[in-house]
């Protein structure tokens, strides 16, 4: 396999990549992986999502290597091939109810300056899911529709073919169970009480 040279303007590197050199590809990966990871993490706030996107971008880089124009830098080429992934990941995080919960949790942590450091968003999502999944089916369904799909009680009643009173009862029952299960876990307690006020 052909050796690869890192030259100042990356000309050798790009032409090596275009010829299909796996060494050159590895060098480019080593040069950009960390920076791209930081950039994508800033959009997704999730390590798992960021790694997925990184994988896709580098695979696209290999598949599209013949399209790199010499004038354009590798840097902007990496952005162009990943552009739609970045945008949709960023929009997805912004519109996520779970991320909103997470910011409230972080703010709360900072406000009270608790000794324990705040957990990451990935971890937060996992704990929230475990808590939700511990609920009986009907309650989980109603809590889910109410909190994460933003449906009003009347709409939930209509959708699930239940009376509005039943929805109300099941919702508060579900939230109470969540509170009991998670009584120890302070931050989730906060989210649950926040839910109750709504």
């Amino acid at each position, binding site marked *: 396999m052909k050796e690869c040279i890192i030259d100042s303007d990356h000309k050798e590197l790009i032409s090596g990549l275009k010829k299909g050199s796996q060494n050159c590809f590895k060098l480019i990966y080593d040069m950009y992986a960390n920076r791209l990871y930081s950039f994508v993490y800033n959009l997704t706030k999730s390590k798992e999502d960021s*790694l997925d996107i990184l994988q896709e971008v580098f695979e696209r880089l290999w598949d599209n290597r013949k399209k790199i124009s010499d004038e354009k830098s590798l840097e902007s080429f990496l952005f162009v091939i990943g552009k739609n992934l970045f945008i949709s990941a960023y929009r997805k995080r912004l519109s996520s109810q779970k991320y909103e919960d997470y910011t409230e949790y972080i703010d709360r942590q900072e406000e009270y300056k608790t000794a324990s450091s705040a957990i990451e968003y990935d971890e937060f999502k996992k704990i929230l899911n475990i808590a939700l999944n511990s609920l009986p089916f009907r309650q989980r369904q109603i809590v889910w529709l109410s909190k994460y799909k933003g449906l009003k009680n009347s709409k939930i009643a209509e959708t699930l073919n239940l009376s509005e009173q039943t929805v109300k009862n099941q919702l508060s029952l579900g939230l109470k169970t969540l509170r009991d299960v998670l009584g120890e876990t302070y931050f989730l307690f906060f989210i649950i009480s926040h839910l109750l006020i709504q």
Partner: protein
Amino acid sequence: MEKKYSNFDKLERERRRAAEMNDEELAQLLQQEWENNDFPELILPADDKEQLYADISSKIFDNEENNYLHSVHERKSLLWKMVKYAAILLMPLLAVASFYLYEKSNHGTEQMIVVQTDRGERITVTLPDGSEVYLNSASVLSYSSESFSEGKREVKFEGEAFFTVTSDPTHPFLVKTGEVNVNVIGTEFNVFSRKNVEDISVFLRKGTVEIHCEGVADVIKLKPSQKAIFDKQNKEIEIINTDNYDNDISWLNNELVFNNEPLEEVINKIEISYGVDFDTQNYSHFSKDRFTGTVPMDDLSKVIDIIEDVYEIKLTVKNKK
């Protein structure tokens, strides 16, 4: 006190900003951030970095080798190809013959009748009780005619089909599909249940059905215009109200309707209903992009035009099955 709610406020600000921008404008903004290094620098742990590289290289480099081997293999196997086509041509004949022989020979034991559609094929099956099942492409329906004659109306099914069930309150009609059983009295409904798709969905047009899902204690009763979606992995059911028309039954009108679906799923559905395969390389860079729109089910060149226009790609059909 200014720090209070700062993360939440920041999210709200970002939301407002993103809402005011289209994708092109947002891309420009993000590109500036990328080029100016305008984001906190993080360290990708060495383990993760190595693992990720291993994943990437095994996927892209192995793929190339496989493609190469594949093409060499194909050139050699003209004879095999001829045998294959002969077999494909004979298959319908074989199916009819074996079905006929099976019915004739199997007296005394339970007779399972199996009706299977190939990709690109759609047929109507009339069951012994007069109920009709319109089977979409690549679907299998099986039932025992003996059970039916004893009044036990039960069918097994996988794929996609629209059921029109003859009303008979004393003999409930049961559709078993994967993890879901649909119990019917007299009704019209669509079932979508494919092994490689995460959800099983049941859309009810008329009448009532009851749905039992594996791992879910409650029985779900659907009302007309409602649609139940069962998530096979998480064992969760979602019920949606529709306006008595759902994308699920668009195939009855010879249309494929897509609503914000990833291109790879869109292509997969087109491949199933036309019985063709597209060259994956044509669209692999866009496979996660979402597509919304309606395409006909009886004009492949038009479908190809639409997809090519939207994504500015060239789609090539590999082989017609």
